[in-house]
């Protein structure tokens, strides 16, 4: 089953869930309507013909105008993998959590919230994962500016020793 068949099956199972198949230049992936991400993911996991039982990884990208969450799921039953992207607006980057569908998303979403600032609605424990709780900003965003000070520690190098 290639990405076209997966898409066809998803279009039947979750009407309106898939926006398009992206083929080039980026590696083939499904573009998912962010509002339907939970339906798409649950269908991917539960449909017997798909059975994507393993979330390989979840990450986030900054595309400039939008932010996007990247999902890569694997079916150990059928030995196939598929990638998905869901775009969210930069000024309101909110998307539903999938951490109850694949528990591994729990930490991946926390990491993505921490470093890219995407908010996962319904996540049971959405806190920063890697950075300190009082850190400001999301460093993997392209418009992130390195802070000059953190907790009275000088981050610049122009000081006299």
């Amino acid at each position, binding site marked *: 089953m290639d990405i076209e068949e997966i898409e066809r099956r998803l279009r039947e199972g979750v009407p309106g869930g898939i926006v398009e198949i992206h083929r080039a*230049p*980026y590696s083939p992936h499904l573009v998912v309507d962010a509002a339907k991400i939970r339906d798409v993911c649950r269908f991917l996991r539960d449909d017997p013909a798909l059975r994507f039982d393993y979330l390989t990884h979840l990450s986030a990208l900054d595309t400039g105008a939008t932010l996007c969450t990247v999902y890569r799921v694997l079916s*150990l039953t059928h030995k196939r*993998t598929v*990638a998905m992207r869901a775009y969210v607006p930069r000024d309101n980057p909110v998307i539903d959590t999938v951490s109850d569908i694949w528990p591994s998303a729990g930490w991946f979403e926390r990491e993505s919230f921490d470093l890219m600032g995407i908010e996962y609605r319904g996540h049971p424990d959405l806190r920063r994962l890697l950075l300190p709780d009082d850190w400001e900003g999301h460093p993997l965003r392209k418009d992130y500016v390195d802070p000059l000070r953190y907790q009275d520690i000088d981050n610049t190098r122009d000081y006299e020793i």
Partner: protein
Amino acid sequence: MPLRTEEMTLNMGPHHPSTHGVLRFILASDGEVVHSCKPDVGYLHRSIEKIGEKMTYLGFMPYTDRVDYVCAMNANWGYALAVEKLAGIAVPRRAEFIRVIVGELNRISSHLVALGTMAMDLGAITPFPWALRERERVNDLLEEICGARLTYNYVWIGGVAFDVPAGWLEKARSFVDSFERMIPEFDRLITGNKIFHERLVGVGVIDRETALGYGISGPNLRASGVAWDIRRDIPYGIYPELEFDVPVGACEAGALGDCYCRFRVRVREMEESVKIVRQCIDRFPHEELEFRTKLRRVKPPIGSVYVASEAPRGELGFLILSNGTEYAERMRIRTGSFTAMSVLEKIAPGLMVADLVAVIASLDVVAPEIDR
């Protein structure tokens, strides 16, 4: 009158002898029983993903050593695979063999650290120097090939940094020959030990459903009965030409997916690595001299790629987004320890505090790989 008990918050780490790096756990416990465990990670966050956007593709290679310094060869290799696929760079056949040899030697040394420290966490000091004695020999071999003992920067994009020195393959063969005899020795020392058994059998069971749900990978996943090995199932390099078994949790004692299964899977994986190294030495293409595609710079076309490789701690995947320049637009690293750590929140409730140490050790988490 019933005995009054009270939940206590217990802080473990960040500097704790049994936490395999700088890790912190916040435990809620009632006496010795853990009610909840919240891992607090990030102490070793070095923003490697952000650095990946600031460095050229060639310049980023030494940083991959630091993703997981216990198996830096495999981290180098995983990154090289991703860039090679993205930029369409060919790898000479001689380099493919060298990569497998150094990768599997590093897997052996990584598993030795895992098993030695695991025994030490359980209170057995002797196995640790025994395991490290063998690891030193791997370090000597890798030092001879690339000059470094921990962070190698050896597997380069397009091949490997240096050719194998004269006589090195024979040294590697004599190492695997003697190491193969050392595995039963290690077995006699520790595997059959009654106290060791008591501490591991039936402790920290991760069933198949949980393992898949939490995205556990590598030996931890296989210990839960899932026969999934990227070297075999999404093969890369010359692995399709090599013969090796994929050890899966055999439930020799206790329950499938317990700490003992994870221990045994690693021991058996070392045996498989020995087989793989020996095959590579036997079939080594001596007549092909090229070991590296010379590259002045790497400038992949606009595109993206995700390439997974089987590192000793599970799936090591690089997601690279290229904008057509020498600098990546996004460098994402998926590591095995990250998901292995997240499962603790699920399996810790109900464990004894001392068993939690065994579980952390059996999952073989390496903190810098979680934090990157």
